[in-house]
């Protein structure tokens, strides 16, 4: 499979504040990659660098092009939906389709109109009279009709109700995605996209915390639920995170980066594959505890 995105040693600062620090990322054709992080982690900065909307030092190629220097050309191959409803308020769907048809070589107006016909949106209805869900549907109609090589979604379902969010991702998979497309999604609502991702990247403070294929995820991370009386023994196995639950204690283990085996963990209770959200919290809180401990050592 061809590499759609190749990023090496990406750095970006806003003033003195680092937004991206030594980010290395390669995304192949056909992948659906989720980029997960807290507010201010650097997700949007990473996406904007990929789209050529902001500059970053390092090597970066998207669809074989330099995104910063060939931004307009890149947009023939890439579509994106930003986190806020960014369609102009004065425009109507008919005008939007007509304009896009004239300036975008890969836009199929019939596809867009077919998709719109399945919604409540009328062709002459202005965006300012649409709800947020309708605006997202209209934007999705454009994206589906372009059928680009790479689709970048930056919090596309922010502010939508659960029905609209599910409908959005269903439409994405049914009407847009085939094995030739590549999708990169940033979202806070990890649980909604977990089932469609082929790969997940955790980013925090501008650095990549974790980059794992979903098929390898279950082999790498294990969650153990055990009685509180086993706490001392379990903690000898170096879990990356622990928290209290109704049954006692829950621990998360990273089998790839420790010497602990599955058999050692299984004897203490029930095991299962943790959710992405659990792993993300585990890694972030684990990082926080680690830095706090270092600080205590420093000032002791």
């Amino acid at each position: 499979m061809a590499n759609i995105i190749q990023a090496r040693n990406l750095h970006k600062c806003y003033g003195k504040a680092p937004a991206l620090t030594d980010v290395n990322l390669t995304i192949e054709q056909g992948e659906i990659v989720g980029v997960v992080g807290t507010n201010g982690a650097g997700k949007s900065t990473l996406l904007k660098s990929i789209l050529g909307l902001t500059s970053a030092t390092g090597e970066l190629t998207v669809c074989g092009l330099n995104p910063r220097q060939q931004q307009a050309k890149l947009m023939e191959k890439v579509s994106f939906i930003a986190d806020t409803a960014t369609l102009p308020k004065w425009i109507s769907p008919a005008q939007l389709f007509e304009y896009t048809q004239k300036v975008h070589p890969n836009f199929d107006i019939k596809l867009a109109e077919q998709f719109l016909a399945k919604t409540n949106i009328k062709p002459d209805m202005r965006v300012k009279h649409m709800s947020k869900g309708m605006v997202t549907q209209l934007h999705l109609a454009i994206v589906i009709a372009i059928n680009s090589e790479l689709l970048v979604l930056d919090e596309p379902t922010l502010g939508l109700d659960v029905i609209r969010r599910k409908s959005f991702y269903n439409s994405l998979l049914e009407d847009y995605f085939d094995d030739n497309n590549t999708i990169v999604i940033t979202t806070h609502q990890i649980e909604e996209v977990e089932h469609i991702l082929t790969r997940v990247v955790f980013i925090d403070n501008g650095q990549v915390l974790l980059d794992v294929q979903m098929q390898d995820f279950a082999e790498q991370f294990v969650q153990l639920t055990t009685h509180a009386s086993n706490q001392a023994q379990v903690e000898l196995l170096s879990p990356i995170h622990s928290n209290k639950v109704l049954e006692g204690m829950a621990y998360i283990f990273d089998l790839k980066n420790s010497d602990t085996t599955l058999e050692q963990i299984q004897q203490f209770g029930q095991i299962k594959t943790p959710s992405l959200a659990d792993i993300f919290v585990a890694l972030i809180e684990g990082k926080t505890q680690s830095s706090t401990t270092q600080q205590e050592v420093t000032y002791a």
Partner: protein
Amino acid sequence: MLSIYYAQLKREFWEHKGVILWYPIILSAIAIGAVLIALIMFGDVQKTVTVAADGTVNVQLHQSIDNSPAVVNNSNAENITTKPKDFKKVASFLFTMMCMDLAIFALAIIGNGLAGDRKDGSILFWRSIPVDERDNVLSKFLTALLVLPAFHVIISLIALFVISVMVAISESLSVTSGMTMTAFTFPLFIDYLSLSIYTLFALMWLLPFFAWVGLVSSYANKLGFVWIFAPFVIIPMLENLFLQSNQFWPAIKTYIDSGMDISVAMFNGNWQAIDLLPGFAGLVLSAVLITATIYVRKIRID
């Protein structure tokens, strides 16, 4: 490339349809309506036109409204022969008013076009379309300086023609000959048509100001108005402070006045009085500012 610019201009037309199309139509409709009402209410004004043996023309207007006392106005031949020159002044006045109108709307199109999409976030959508920012910026200037004046001029010419025909018809229906008024109103139309050709020239002469507004709109997030006018306050202050001179504001005024003078000189066929050198300097400055605008638009999305 041409189809992209056509699509861009059409997009700008949709966005600014109010000022490009509806404003001149409404204004013209009001003017036509006002003249129509005036002709209906006061169309029965009686005139006595006498032509003496030596060819002098005398027009006596008798005005009588309801029970008001009659007022008689006399126009002697000299005033009648100067009427065409008076209408040239009227045409120049209408031309100047239209240019002021167009300048304000052009500033609004350029300023709002280059700042509004950053404010409401729609720039993120426009940047997802494969149109270079160079084409985006240039199409906004073309809309402000070409499309906007074209619509205003054409619609105002149509309105003025309709008014001229209405007046001519009204006069021809009255007892006295309507040809006198027709001869006076159609030269007004012709003079205004001739001056309208120079609208584009007048707006291009002001291009440096539009280009500066475009650059500020592309960059400033807050206090855009302050940024626009700041150089016109700060530069004279610094000039006075460090150079003890006062050349900046007179130079601006001279530049603007020379543009309008050239328009009128071209209108009157006085080609020797035309000096286009300041205009070339203005074009160079405009090119620099517009290039800077394109660069800023490429690097700023918020």
